[in-house]
């Protein structure tokens, strides 16, 4: 088994339009999806991220008060899962409720360094 990261982008503009009840329902979907992975021993960790950010650019000499990418490209959160192949990890990602909010998910293997 290898570890993969899901980089989840976007979805924030859709989320802010939803009512509290709809959001609660939405989080139940996350519960189901992540719970399913946890049951199978596939879940390692994951967190949603706050929109506000600071970014360091120009060789670390400059700090700007915003994330590097906004809107659809804004990273909303990440998950770390276990799978045997990139294909398998990608298949598992299809169940992410974030897609209802037009998120995108980039699936990357955690790199074992020599």
């Amino acid at each position, binding site marked *: 088994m290898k570890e993969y990261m899901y980089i989840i982008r976007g979805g924030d503009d859709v989320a802010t339009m939803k009512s509290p009840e709809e959001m609660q329902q939405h989080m139940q979907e996350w519960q189901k999806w*992540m*719970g399913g992975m946890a049951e199978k021993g596939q879940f390692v960790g994951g967190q949603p991220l706050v929109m506000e950010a600071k970014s360091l650019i120009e060789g670390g000499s400059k700090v700007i008060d915003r994330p590097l990418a906004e809107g659809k490209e804004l990273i909303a959160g990440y998950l770390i899962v276990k799978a045997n192949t990139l294909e398998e990890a990608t298949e598992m990602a299809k169940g992410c409720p974030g897609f209802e909010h037009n998120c995108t998910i980039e699936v990357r293997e955690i790199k074992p360094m020599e």
Partner: protein
Amino acid sequence: MVAVLVNIFGTENVELAEDVVQDALVNALETWKFLGIPDNPKAWLYRVAKNKAIDIIRRKKHSRNFDFSDPQKQLLTSEYTLVTTMENYWQESYISDEFLGLMYACCHPEISRENQITFTLKTLCGFSTREIARAFLTSEDTISKRIYRAREFFRKNKIRPEIPAAEEVVLRTSAVLGTIYLIFNEGYNSTHSDRLIREDLIFQSMHLCRSLLENKKTRLPEVYALMALMCFHASRNDSRLTPEGEVIVLSGQDRSTWNKEMITLANDYLNKAAFGEKITTYHLEAAIAYEHCVAKNFKDINWKAILGYYDTLLSISFDPVVCLNRCVAVLEWEGPAKAMEAIQELADNRQIHKYYLYHAVLGELYKRLGVKEKATQCFEKAIELTHSNQEKRFLKTKIDEL
């Protein structure tokens, strides 16, 4: 609430669970003083405890003491699922299961009986260390050590608070019932305090037993039997002491003060206990208690039936206290000479010789046979061995009556 939190934090963090509940209660007292009691106090308390638990998880999830390896618990580590998972733990339908699960953990067979009792009183019944120390005439230090040892045991063996699987439930329940019965006994006839009857311990033990009855998985015949037994005994509480708190013996008790509703309830439980394949000692003790409770007067007691039950009890397993109690039945049914013969069986039993009632009974036998000197000796020995001032005074009057 403690049970739910122990389920979340793990049995190695029982103290933390207790702290959260305590904080929630203090919080409630302080807030309600000004705002009045809310419409749904339980929901209020749950909400406060839930929020504190979420706080603690956020702060401590990387701490060594927390084990989040369980698939359901893993979801507590992610903000995506922390709040929803926490809500799920507090579903009403789970709470009784958790209370029972914690009871089974507290009464784990590999924990010593004393530690089981201590842990049960502390964690399930909310007794303070000092209250437990007072109940069992030990120091707070001893009690703290017992609690520490129990916690270490939970931590090392990763004990999960849960109702045992069907194939284990009878054996594990037997341990739980034993502990409940010991707590009841201490409440019924406290040998350690100035109050002979401790209603708080009686109440707690009956509450624990009733919880077992509320869950299908743990609703065993012997649980009904123990419940019946405790109800029969407790029904007579009002008649057992004078207003000044002195002992009144069975023959002198005012039966009109016996709690008839409780006797009816006990009867009901006894009937419900009559399913299943075996008779347990609780069934027989309940049957004996039944005979006492239904007799109109002392002279109407069916000693023959009671003697039969004692014989059956002893055939299941020999217990010196049961044997002693049987001697009393022999005394009433067949007279002091026969009783004296019967009590010889305990002549070499070193364990029973440390028990004050053995000497009290022997004293009573000598008294009825007219052997005053021996009777006095026995009663004096009994006085030495009991810690209860009321019992001591009662025994002194026995000597004075000689």
